[in-house]
């Protein structure tokens, strides 16, 4: 193969969303040579679509608010497989991280006293569940993700990291010692292939909602980082845990923020009944997302769905009044008019649970370094590899993420990864070498597509994969369907391995990117399927009709899927917060 162009950095971040940009800012401010590879211009990253807000105990709406209550809610929301040391870190560091964003210029909505506006979100409580509904989600109208991502990009314009925008990371470069030494990437505009070497590589590539046919996720959310990690032989954690957001617009899949219910909206069935009162008498429409999504599906399955096909329920907002809707939920008005052809000022929005968020991902330490297990089942850090944000599983979300906790995750753990890398580089982690054969291994997949001369089309295979996941690994799961799904995925693995890339051109070749993304979708889907079949219980978002109870005796643990032998191992959940008493598992009721 021809000699590769090579670039070298101290810290390389793959992904230009919230986590990546926050990590980049930290590294650039520390004076290290940092670079961000992003397959889109950074403000196009999917963080931009986050709506409702960032949950954090800044004590604006309630001066008595306490990060330990936020921690309690998050642990409970996770159905007790969130790591308590990580949740403690996120909730206690959160206020500082949010104030930093405000200082950078994030245009938060405000209270009369000039502080940051906070709204109620699902699963929030005061006083460890005893003091009623809390209002803890800091918001910039219903465009918080947009405001956050643009603010972080703006700060980076000032910051000084190198931006490799519209570059696509193909695969990790792993040397003979199992250390990650950088990535092979494509400069999309020219098609040039480049070896980007770095002392530390952070995967901040976001989620993979596009493994499902119906998702709120952007078209580019194809799990590229998780795919790269799996192909390099590294494990993923709790990958069976997928959040279905209760309110995706029926048919379109476009997200309608939980903030709608936080502001007082509620769900109704075809009889006009506010059905969540039956399923969650206390929290009602603001129960955990998994609980609300399941309740909606039951309503639909039992014949109380709305519309001609009875395939959705309705989200009612008109009683909030036009003024509130205009000031608090302007983006929702816009999206509803465009994609549901309804005006929420007068009519309810047709909604249905829609794939939204990947709780699982690359297992990491609290400071962001990626983990695997050694032969004795002990945690072992992966040299040179870090992960943050949705691609990572640190794990603060466990089996079910609370609304507003994803944006907090991004900035707290993006920053933590940056800090840790800075420290590691200062202490002198050496630059690791990769051999010619290591580089060739990282280019093998790209070469396969480039050499393909015939085979099935990428678009058709992708659709089949998405339909399989939707049918067999949705809100409710059973052994029988999952087995069938796994068989189909096995067939798809062979077929995708022989699929055809007809367009071999160099300049801005999006067909090649979609082919490479399909490999990543397959890796994530396959890992999801195997791990979902293995976890024989119901917990959080993982609801099995054949194992309906939570099984703490056998499954109060993380799952760890190893790609090389398709094995699912167990990993202990952390029950050792440093500064507060442990939260013991209890029955989860809303």
């Amino acid at each position, binding site marked *: 193969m021809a000699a590769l162009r090579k670039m070298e950095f101290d810290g390389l971040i793959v992904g230009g969303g919230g986590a990546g940009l926050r990590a980049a800012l930290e590294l650039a401010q520390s004076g290290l040579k940092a670079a961000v590879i992003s397959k889109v211009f950074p403000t196009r990253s999917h963080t931009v679509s986050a709506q409702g807000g960032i949950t954090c105990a800044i004590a604006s709406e309630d001066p008595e608010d306490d990060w330990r209550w936020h921690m309690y809610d998050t642990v409970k929301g996770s159905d007790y497989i969130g790591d308590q040391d990580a949740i403690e870190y996120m909730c206690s560091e959160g206020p500082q991280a949010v104030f930093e964003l405000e200082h950078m210029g994030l245009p938060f909505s405000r209270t009369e006293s000039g502080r940051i506006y906070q709204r109620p979100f699902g699963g929030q409580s005061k006083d460890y569940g005893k003091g009623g509904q809390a209002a803890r989600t800091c918001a910039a109208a219903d465009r918080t993700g947009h405001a956050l991502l643009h603010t972080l990009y703006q700060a980076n314009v000032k910051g000084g990291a190198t931006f490799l925008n519209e570059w696509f990371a193909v695969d990790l470069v792993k040397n003979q010692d199992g250390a990650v030494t950088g990535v092979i990437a494509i400069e999309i505009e020219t098609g040039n292939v480049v070896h980007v070497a770095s002392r530390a590589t952070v995967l901040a590539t976001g989620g993979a909602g596009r493994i499902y046919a119906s998702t709120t996720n952007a078209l580019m959310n194809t799990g590229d980082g998780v795919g790269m990690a799996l192909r390099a032989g590294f494990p993923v954690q709790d990958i069976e845990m997928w959040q279905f957001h209760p309110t995706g617009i029926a048919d379109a899949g476009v997200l309608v923020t939980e903030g709608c219910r936080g502001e007082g909206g509620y769900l109704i069935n075809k009889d006009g009944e506010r059905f969540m009162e039956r399923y969650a008498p206390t929290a009602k429409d603001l129960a955990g997302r998994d609980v609300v999504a399941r309740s909606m599906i039951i309503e639909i399955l039992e014949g109380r769905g709305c519309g001609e096909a009875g395939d959705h329920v309705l989200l009612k907002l008109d009683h909030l009044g036009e003024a509130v809707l205009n000031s608090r939920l302007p983006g929702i008005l816009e999206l509803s008019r465009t994609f549901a052809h309804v005006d929420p000022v007068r009519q309810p929005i047709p909604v249905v649970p829609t794939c939204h968020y990947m709780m699982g991902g690359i297992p990491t330490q609290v400071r962001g370094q990626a983990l695997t297990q050694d032969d004795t089942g002990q945690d072992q850090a992966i040299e040179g590899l870090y992960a943050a944000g949705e691609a990572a599983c640190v794990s603060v979300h466990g089996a079910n993420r609370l609304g507003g906790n994803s944006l907090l995750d991004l900035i707290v753990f993006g920053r933590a990864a940056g800090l840790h890398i800075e420290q590691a580089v200062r202490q002198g982690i050496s630059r690791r070498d990769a051999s010619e054969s290591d580089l060739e291994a990282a280019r093998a997949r790209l070469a396969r597509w480039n050499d393909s001369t015939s085979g099935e089309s990428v678009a058709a295979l992708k659709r089949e994969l998405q339909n399989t996941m939707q049918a067999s690994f949705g809100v409710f799961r059973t052994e029988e369907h999952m087995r069938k799904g796994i068989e189909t995925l096995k067939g798809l693995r062979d077929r995708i391995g022989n699929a055809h890339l007809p367009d071999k051109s160099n*300049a*801005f070749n999006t067909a090649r990117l979609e082919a490479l993304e399909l490999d990543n979708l397959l890796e994530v889907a396959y890992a999801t399927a195997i791990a979902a079949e293995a976890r024989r219980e119901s917990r959080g978002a993982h609801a099995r009709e054949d194992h309906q109870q939570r099984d703490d005796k056998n499954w109060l643990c993380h799952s760890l899927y190893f790609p090389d032998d398709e094995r699912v191992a167990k990993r202990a959940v952390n029950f050792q917060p440093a500064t507060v008493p442990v939260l013991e598992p209890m029955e989860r009721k809303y």
Partner: protein
Amino acid sequence: MQVSVYRYDPDVDEAPEMRDMSLELPEGKDLMVLDLLERLKEQDPSLSYRRSCREGVCGSDGINMNGLNGLACITPVSQVAKRGKLALRPLPGLPVVRDLVVDMSQFFDQFEKVRPYLINDQPPPAQERLQSPEERAELDGLYECILCGCCSTACPSFWWNPDKFVGPAGLLQAYRFLADSRDTAGAERLRDLEDPFSVFRCRGIMNCVNVCPKGLNPTQAIGKIRGLLVRQGT
């Protein structure tokens, strides 16, 4: 449905051309232009365009549809097609990389020129800086910009002077920070804009307002900057 698409691959084509493609549209369903592009790409995977969020917030898929700039993902085909025909072209005025993909460096250079970040020379407090709801309301209609480029590439002044005229998108950003009660660099910001080109090449023809997919009003923001410059000059 007849769709005529601007095609250009720099490695193969000597010159760009409009190529016709035909497509069966489903009955009784009004697709977005992006849905149509995705179907065309299944026919011909070599067709290149940018897209991501498919809900009008990421700003990737600004293109020119039957002469009008907009986002493909939130523009219904029925709104732009005329007599069953639709011509899709890249955003005008910028170099074409391939097909519907333009090189946006000039656009982003102008964005960076206005120092699009909050400047405050006071040490930050332990909590957030306070801002009243009224002060915050000054940012509405400004901070929502998604940098899609529809406005600047619809602006003849930006076509003539893309290196010197900041353009509607950049000026909207400039005013977003001038209007922010937390920013302390107003005077310097205005000084950077007082030359004959940066702001004053705006002729107020309001193409930007006409095409903005987020319903923002760059012309108004530019008017306010002019007002501040004039007041500062007196």
